[in-house]
């Protein structure tokens, strides 16, 4: 199969899985060596920051414990556009850069009587992904979500 199509389909499929909060389904798209990070540059402190860093086991623990936590259940909807895909010469690894915009569809975060049903911009950024390609499948080796936001208000418990 076309490795470019494999990578593109994996990114878009993972977007749908994350939107559905199908964390197990999303992790099934990730290699055992998968690493996940949310990062941002701060002009305030003149530093690159890592807001969240987890390996695959860390993510498994994080999603397993989600039901134990009080959380904002307002669903997040991602709009992802794949900008570039680069496949290495042997066709076994790839890098992709995608734009992502995340909307928060208000439910219970503030006052549901007033806010529920409204969609608000939650964050903007880019996915910098790497992939392993084998057996006609592209699996995430890493995902760096690089966001433009430093104002995140209540934040989120969920992988983005």
């Amino acid at each position, binding site marked *: 199969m076309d490795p470019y199509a494999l990578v593109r389909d994996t990114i878009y499929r993972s977007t749908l899985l994350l939107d559905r909060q199908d964390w197990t389904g999303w992790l099934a798209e990730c290699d055992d060596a998968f690493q996940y990070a*949310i990062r*941002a540059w*701060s*002009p*305030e*402190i*003149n*530093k690159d*920051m*890592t*807001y*969240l*860093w987890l390996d695959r*086991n*860390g993510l498994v*623990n*994080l999603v*397993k*414990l989600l039901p*134990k*936590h*009080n*959380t*904002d259940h307002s669903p997040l909807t991602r709009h992802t556009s794949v900008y570039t895909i680069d496949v290495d010469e042997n066709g076994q690894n790839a890098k992709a850069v995608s734009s992502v915009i995340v909307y928060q569809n208000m439910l219970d*975060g*503030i*006052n549901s009587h007033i806010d529920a049903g409204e969609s608000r911009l939650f964050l903007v950024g880019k996915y910098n992904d790497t992939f392993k390609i084998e057996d006609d499948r592209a699996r995430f080796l890493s995902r760096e979500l690089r966001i433009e936001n*430093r*104002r*995140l*208000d*209540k*934040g*989120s*418990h*969920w992988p*983005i």
Partner: protein
Amino acid sequence: MAAKNHRQWTAEPKLQPSEWVDSRVYSDVEIFEEEQEKIFKRTWIPVCHESELPNAYDFRTTSIAREPIIMCRGPDNEVRAFLNVCPHRGMIIERRPAGSFLEGQPSGNPKRMTCMFHAWQYDMRGNCVYISREKEGFQDRLCKEEVGLRRLRCEVKFGGFVWVNLDDNPQVSLEDWAGPAFACLRKSLEAEPLEVFHYHKAIVNSNYKLWHDTNCEFYHDFMHYHNRVTGFNDAYFARKNEAFEHGHVVVGTFEVNYEKYEGFESRAALSFPHLPPNQWYMIDLFPGMNFNLRGSALRCDIVTPLAPDKVMIEFRGLGLKSDTAQDRQTRVNHHNSIWGPFGRNLHEDLLGVQGQGTTMLPGSEPRRILHGRHENQTIHDENGMRHYYAEWGRWMNRRPSRPEEPFSEAVSVAAE
């Protein structure tokens, strides 16, 4: 008693008046405006950390009580603070959050603060050093020596934080104001230089004091799964809330069992200097600043009240300047796994304070907010909030339980 009618619901509780506050202290517009004048314009506020302006000519901007402020490091390495206001026509001088004046600007020269509007320029001591077409416009009626910036009280203290006071004649020195509260951590924070590694902010629809209340009481640990599994033991329930002069509170330490939260690890290997393994101290400063050291990472919250029902909270994380890259990354993970915008606890805290804000909007029916738990001044005692509101009452000359009445020392401290 079952659910109450209006008279019962609004009746004063069978507690001492110091054990509750009237919710109007969180929602009344007049009280909010008064707080800006009586408290925020007269007290010491930590505005940033010195590591945010490490080099000569670095600057950082902020605001206190709606006044825009600029801090800059001079060629003599001193950090100074000024109103970020041009004395000519009131333009904000520096619009960026941070940067370096070593770079020239479209309207001005390097090593100068330049107002872009009419190109007036100031040095790092706040002296006006250039007025465009000075003689042509002002002849001998006004000269640059007469139009320096408004300087502000500024000190670097308690682990390298930059403190500003809008009052030229503060009631107490910064040392006397916060030194005793910082005593428990001073050795750890001042053993070697610290460095900020994390910054983010939240604007939530809630009163700033509700955020500080959350930081002052640990009874809300029932909201945090992480804190319950890593904390709830005899040593946790023995932690003391110690009140200090000027409305400050320090929450004493105990050893946190981080491994009890799946996927988390001990922080013992990266403890701050002079701090035993996995200890957790918290310093809450009146009127709304928090310093929170969980073993390997220091968090600092600074509130900027924007309206009775709106507050900006800036969150900083700090480690040791001497950290290796690997140690720094571990500290960052320790900090952000709990306190980052995607961490386990901060999201819950912000949901809590936002939920309170939702019920205490300007014009909402006044109700009693209880601060009446007594547990020998340990972790779930609400003495921290009672101590805070006694101080608030003194500054405001209002009784927290009846804010339309003047403050009474006897009424406000009776429960203690």
